[in-house]
């Protein structure tokens, strides 16, 4: 580095204009598309964090039974509406690891509520890798080992217990299994229908385009929730929870495809006239191949981003349906089913922790929104 007489700084290294052009661009030009997208996505901090968070959430789903200290429908009739219990580390200033104080329910004869009094002289350390309620790991392997459990004769309600004395923390973990996958199944259905119908309409045009377009318009102009309600009211009440769950996700997907189909159709209309499509057609490629190999990959990433943005609507939809009692029903555990308990002001006022399932809903929905925004922004890596 030398300083010129007029005060500017100049690098001493010899300058080769040719090299600097090549060096700068070569790396980016050769990189595959996904690498460019990833590089850009990395700069979108909020999207990145949300993506990681969601990844952790979904990876956790098969192990919900292992992480949860209690079973999904395990009742503790001595501790109805128990408030959240804190896990302490220090007892009278001495470190003894994570422990809880045993609580005893006492009736308050003035308000007729149970009051839970902690015995602060008796620290009970938590147990790890201990035996508890039986569950199935990933729905396949039966096991009864839990990551941590309450000590013998003591309860451990991290986020309180509900009106039947069930642990809300454990139920939120179990509920995530249904609430989070509803969106995935729904979006697969809507993705399939949207791409199929959208590409048919955009590629072939003409009368079939007109028909599909009208269907899209009609479905888009209808309020979703009443239709969801009506369709899920048609689900027979004697079906198993799993069947109900699947049909609900399919219903959510069936009413969601028009938005996607419209985007696909618009893209097809503009890409249909490109030279490479003509070339493929003239070489005798059947329409199915042209659509799959030449057209769809062009905007698949765009579709994935918009799909990410419509998953939250499905999660909220499931919650609303279950909340109103027309979605998943009692033995099944989902966040909406849990919120059924928190439906009125009185219970939120007296037992605020019954509304805790709201928290994961809000966080997950926000995370999906941020992730979708980040993906959308970084999908066109050549755009500056």
């Amino acid at each position, binding site marked *: 580095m030398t300083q010129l007489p007029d005060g500017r700084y100049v690098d001493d290294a010899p300058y080769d204009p040719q090299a600097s052009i090549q060096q700068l661009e070569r790396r980016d030009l050769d990189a595959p598309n996904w690498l460019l997208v990833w590089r850009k996505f990395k700069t979108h901090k909020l999207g990145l964090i949300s993506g990681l968070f969601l990844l952790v959430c979904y990876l956790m789903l098969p192990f919900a039974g292992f992480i949860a200290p209690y079973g999904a429908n395990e009742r503790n009739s001595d501790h109805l509406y128990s408030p959240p219990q804190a896990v302490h580390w220090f007892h009278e200033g001495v470190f003894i690891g994570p422990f809880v104080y045993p609580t005893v329910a006492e009736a308050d004869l003035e308000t007729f509520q149970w009051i839970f009094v902690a015995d602060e002289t008796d620290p009970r350390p938590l147990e790890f890798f201990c035996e508890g309620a039986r569950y199935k790991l990933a729905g396949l392997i039966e096991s009864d080992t839990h990551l941590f459990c309450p000590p013998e004769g003591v309860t451990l309600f991290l986020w309180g217990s509900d009106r039947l004395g069930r642990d809300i923390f454990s139920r939120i973990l179990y509920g995530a299994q249904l609430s989070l996958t509803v969106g995935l199944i729904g979006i697969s259905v809507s993705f399939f229908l949207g791409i199929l119908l959208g590409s048919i309409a955009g590629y072939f045009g003409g009368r079939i385009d007109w028909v599909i377009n009208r269907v899209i318009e009609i479905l888009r102009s209808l*309020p979703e929730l009443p239709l969801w309600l009506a369709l899920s009211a048609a689900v027979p009440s004697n079906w198993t929870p799993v069947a109900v769950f699947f049909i609900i996700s399919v219903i959510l997907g069936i009413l969601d495809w028009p938005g996607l189909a419209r985007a696909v159709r618009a893209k097809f209309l503009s890409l249909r006239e490109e030279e490479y499509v003509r070339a493929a057609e003239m070489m005798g490629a059947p329409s199915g191949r042209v659509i799959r190999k030449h057209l769809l990959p062009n905007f698949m990433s765009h579709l994935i981003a918009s799909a990410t943005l419509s998953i939250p609507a499905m999660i909220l939809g499931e919650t*609303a349906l279950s909340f109103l009692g027309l979605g998943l029903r009692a033995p099944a555990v989902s966040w909406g089913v849990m919120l059924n308990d928190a439906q009125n002001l009185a219970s939120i006022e007296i037992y605020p922790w019954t509304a805790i399932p709201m928290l994961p809903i809000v966080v997950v929905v926000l995370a999906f929104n941020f992730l979708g925004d980040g993906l959308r922004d970084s999908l066109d890596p050549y755009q500056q």
Partner: protein
Amino acid sequence: MALLRYSIYRFGTMILTLVVVSVLVFVIINLPPGDYLSNQIAELQASGQSAGVAKAEFLRKEYALDRPLYQQYLVWMGFIPGPQGFSGLIQGDLGWSFEFDRPVAEIVGDTVWLTVVVNLAAVVFVYIVALPLGVLAAARSRTWVDYTSAFIGYLGLATPNFLLALILYYYGRQYLNIPIGGLMDPIYEGMPLTWEKLKSVGVHLIVPTIVIGTAGASAMMQRLRANMLDELGKPYVETAVAKGMSPARMLTKYPLRVAFNPFVADIGNLLPSMVSGSVLVSVVMGLQTIGPTLLTALKTQDLFLSGFILMFVALLTLIGTMISDILLVLLDPRIRYEGRET
């Protein structure tokens, strides 16, 4: 003249859509296995009440429920004569509610108007909130104004409606003494419209309006902000600033007008979700709209009641969309011809 022709064309398509929707609705409400009257008849026969059975049989005849499904539909709509001659939805006969044992028109009565009022209030709320906030966020982009409004917007999108309702009721009651639940004080129910009743409805409307409108307002705000940012980067804005125009006047005179088009068009997209939101919120908040009635009707398979409500909700959104389309043409003559093509 062209505008009139477009309005008529738009009205025509709306009617056609409505007919398709009616088929859809009729199929959906007939999806659940069994029907109300058969269940009732079986139940009455089991308990040996023959008088009730006779009445149920009479009702079944009266509303052509003993005919094939497609004829039931045509009678329900009033396209072909039923046992009473032409008396379907288009003749203004809404049918009979088996669950409440009264005509549907009598049950929905007032609630229809309250539904319209609630949704109108929500639309007005969306405009009043989204317009200034969106413009402000764009004009002061990448400052705390922008970030705060974006944060509130995201929160509004992510919070389930019913949670927001409960929170607002709770704190509204504690600090502002806002009444909880319902759309008017119980004493005004069934009373003729007076100034006092209007005031009561107004106070009760505050929370529902905010709850129904928030998600829509945040979506609208983000859209408007993006549009405004696109416009603000254009050379004519720079020219106006360079010539010494005051920022506020410049904003409202040029970019806002261009960014305004999608703003009006968007209400067509927003309305369906807002009407659905109002159904859910009404159930939670105990509003006297058609939401709670719809829920009971669906749960008890009350055919005509749920059918009419679904039709009414669809009609509400279709009319809203039509009005927004026509407004759009009024605002921007360029759209008129494009709109007809696609």
